[in-house]
C-alpha cells in the first residue's frame, strides 16, 4: 500500500462519510453521509454544537477513527474506503497530516524545540536538519526565544503556537485543528486563527478548524456546519470574504 499524492489535487476529499457507534439498540449515528472538499491553501471552519459530530468527522479525515462507510482521499491519494485502509494510515498521518487540538498536547518531557523536532525525526528526518527546521518554525511563529522551555513553563498561547509549529513540521498537505483557541483569550485566539490562514496560504496546505469561536470567522475562506451528524451550509450564509466558497457538499 504505497501512498502517492498529487500536489494539484484537493487537500482532502470526503465522500459520503458515515460513522455508526454500537449495535442494535445502542446504535448511534455520529456522522451521516458527509461529503466535502478542501483545496490546498484553503482554510475552512467547521462549526456546530457539541455532539454534532465535528470531532468524529475530523478524526475520520485525520485517519485516526475510520468511518463505517464512505471514502476519504487526501491529496489525490485514496486512504480509506469505509473502515478499510488503502494506505498505511500511521505512515500517511506522519507524512501528510498535522494535528492541533484544544489542549496543545505537547510532550511534557520535551522542550518546545524538541516537541517540534520529534515530529520530523519520527518521519526519518536527520536530527540536524530537523532541529534547523524546528528553529525556523518557532522563529516563524514568534517563540524562538522560548525554544528551550518545557511545556509547563510556557503560557497557553505559547504552547498552542508550539503545537502549530509541530503540526507544520513535516510540511503536511492537510492540517486539522480541533478547537485550537478554546483555551486562549480572544486576542491570542485570533492570532492562532490568523496563523492558520497564513500557513495555509504560504505552505499550500488545506486547513480544517473545528471552532465555537464566532468572533474569528472572517479569517476563514469557507465555513462548514454540522448538526446531528449531518454537514450543511451555514444558515446565515458566509462572510463577504468567503461568500463564493460557501459550504458545498462535494
Amino acid at each position: 500500500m504505497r501512498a502517492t499524492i498529487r500536489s494539484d489535487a484537493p487537500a482532502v476529499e470526503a465522500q459520503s462519510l458515515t460513522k455508526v457507534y454500537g449495535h442494535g439498540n445502542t446504535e448511534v449515528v455520529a456522522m451521516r453521509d458527509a461529503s466535502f472538499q478542501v483545496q490546498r491553501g484553503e482554510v475552512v471552519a467547521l462549526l456546530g454544537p457539541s455532539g454534532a459530530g465535528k470531532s468524529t468527522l475530523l478524526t475520520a479525515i485525520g485517519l485516526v477513527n475510520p468511518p463505517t462507510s464512505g471514502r476519504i482521499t487526501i491529496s489525490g491519494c485514496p486512504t480509506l474506503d469505509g473502515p478499510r485502509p488503502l494506505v498505511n494510515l500511521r505512515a500517511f498521518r506522519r507524512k501528510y497530516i498535522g494535528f492541533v487540538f484544544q489542549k496543545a498536547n505537547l510532550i511534557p518531557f520535551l522542550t518546545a524545540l524538541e516537541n517540534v523536532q520529534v515530529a520530523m525525526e519520527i518521519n526519518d528526518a536527520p536530527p540536524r536538519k530537523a532541529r534547523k527546521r524546528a528553529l525556523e518554525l518557532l522563529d516563524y511563529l514568534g517563540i524562538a526565544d522560548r525554544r528551550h522551555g518545557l511545556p509547563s513553563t510556557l503560557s497557553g498561547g505559547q504552547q498552542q503556537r508550539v503545537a502549530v509549529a509541530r503540526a507544520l513540521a513535516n510540511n503536511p498537505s492537510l492540517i486539522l485543528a480541533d478547537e485550537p483557541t478554546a483555551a486562549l483569550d480572544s486576542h491570542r485566539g485570533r492570532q492562532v486563527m490568523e496563523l492558520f490562514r497564513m500557513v495555509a496560504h504560504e505552505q499550500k496546505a488545506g486547513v480544517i478548524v473545528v471552532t465555537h469561536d464566532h468572533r474569528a470567522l472572517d479569517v476563514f475562506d469557507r465555513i462548514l456546519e454540522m448538526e446531528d451528524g449531518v454537514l450543511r451550509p451555514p444558515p446565515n450564509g458566509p462572510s463577504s470574504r468567503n461568500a463564493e466558497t460557501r459550504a458545498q457538499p462535494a
Partner: protein
Amino acid sequence: MNLAVRDIRHKLSRFLLTALGIGMLLMIVMGMGGIYQGFTEDAMSFLDRAQADLWIVQRGTRGPFAEISRIPWSLENRPYAVTGVASARAFVYQTIQREYQGQSLRMTVQGLAWPQDDGRELPLIAGRALGQAHYEMLADRILGLRLGDRVPLGKDVYTVVGITAGMVSTAGDGSAFFTVPDAIAIQYDTPGEAIRLERQTQQAQLAKQDLGNTQPFLRDQLPSLATALSTKYVSAIVVKVAPGVDPADAAKAMSAWRDVTVYPNDAQRELMLKSIERNRKQLGMFRTLLVIISAIIMALILYTLTLEKMHDIAMLKLMGARNRTVVALILQQALLLGALGYGLAYCIGLWVFPYFPRRVAVTHENLVQLALIVLAISIISSLLGIWKAMSVQPNEVLA
C-alpha cells in the same frame, strides 16, 4: 532524539531513587551470589593449601571436613613404606570455642608440620611465619587478633606472630595455625582435675586386678606409664607423591591397610563440596527468589512509568510514530534502569561487602552472570509496559 533519555532527564530525581532501590535489591542478589561463591572458595582454599595427592583418614569416615576423623599421629611415617610417596605429614583440623578478653573466640585449629611447613605459604598480610616449635600461632584476620596478642589455649599461651587473610572454614570460622604438637595439645586439652580423677580411676581399677596387687609399683608408676604409652591423634595424614607417580597407584597400595581409608584429593574435594551443598542450595534458592522479586518490582515500576505516559504515547502514535519508537522509549528506560541499578549494586557492594562477617567472593563470572540476569529482567519487565503502550489508540489523545 532519544525519548527515553529525555523523559528520564525530566524526572531525574525520581528515576535515580528508583534506580537506587533496584540497585539495593540487585546488590543483595549480587551478595548472595558472592556468599555462595565464598562458601566454595573458602572450602577449596583449605584443600588447595594442603597440596595433597592423597588423604588418609579414619577408617569408614569421610575425612575431617565432613565429620570427626582421628588417626594416630604415628601413622605419619607409614606412607613412606609405599613406593612413590614423596612426603606425608599430619593434618589437624578442629573447631574450638574459647573465651578471650571477655569475648567468645571461635576458631578452626590447624596444625602445620613444622619445621617443613612453617606457614610461609599461607596468605600472610602481617607478621611472619612460625619461628619456633611451640607457643606461636598465625591467626586469620577475621578472628580479630593482633600481632603480639597472647592467647591462652589449654594450659599454654600462644603469641600471634602472623595474620592471614581469607583462611576461613566452611562454617565461616577463622583459622588459626599452630605446629602439629601444639594443635594436638589444644585439641586434646584436658583440665588437671579431670586428669587426676582419671588417674585415680585407673589406679583403682588396677588395684582390683591381680597385676595391680602382685606388682604394686605399677600403681605408683601408672601416671607416667599412661602418659608415655598414650597415643596422640591427628585428623588426617596428607600424602604427596613424587613427580611422575600416579596417586592412584599409591592409593591402591594403601587400600590394603585395614585401619584407615584413603581418598584421592578429588574425592576429598567432592566430599567438601557436598558438605556445603545444602548451604549453597539455600542461598541459590534465596537468590532465585530475589531475582524473581526484582523482576516483578521492575515490571511494576516500568508499567507505572508507562501508564503515566499513555497520553504522550497516544500523541506520538497520532503523529505517526512507529511502534518501534514507542517500544524503544520503554525498553531503553528499562535497560537504563537495569544498567544503573546494576552499577549502583556493584558500587554499593564494593563498599558494603567487606563488612560482611563471611567472605563475599564476587567473581568476574558472577558479575557477568548477574549482568545477563539484569538484562533479561529489564527486557522481560518492560514487556508489560510495551503491551500496554501498544494497546493505546491514537484517538485517546482527544479523550
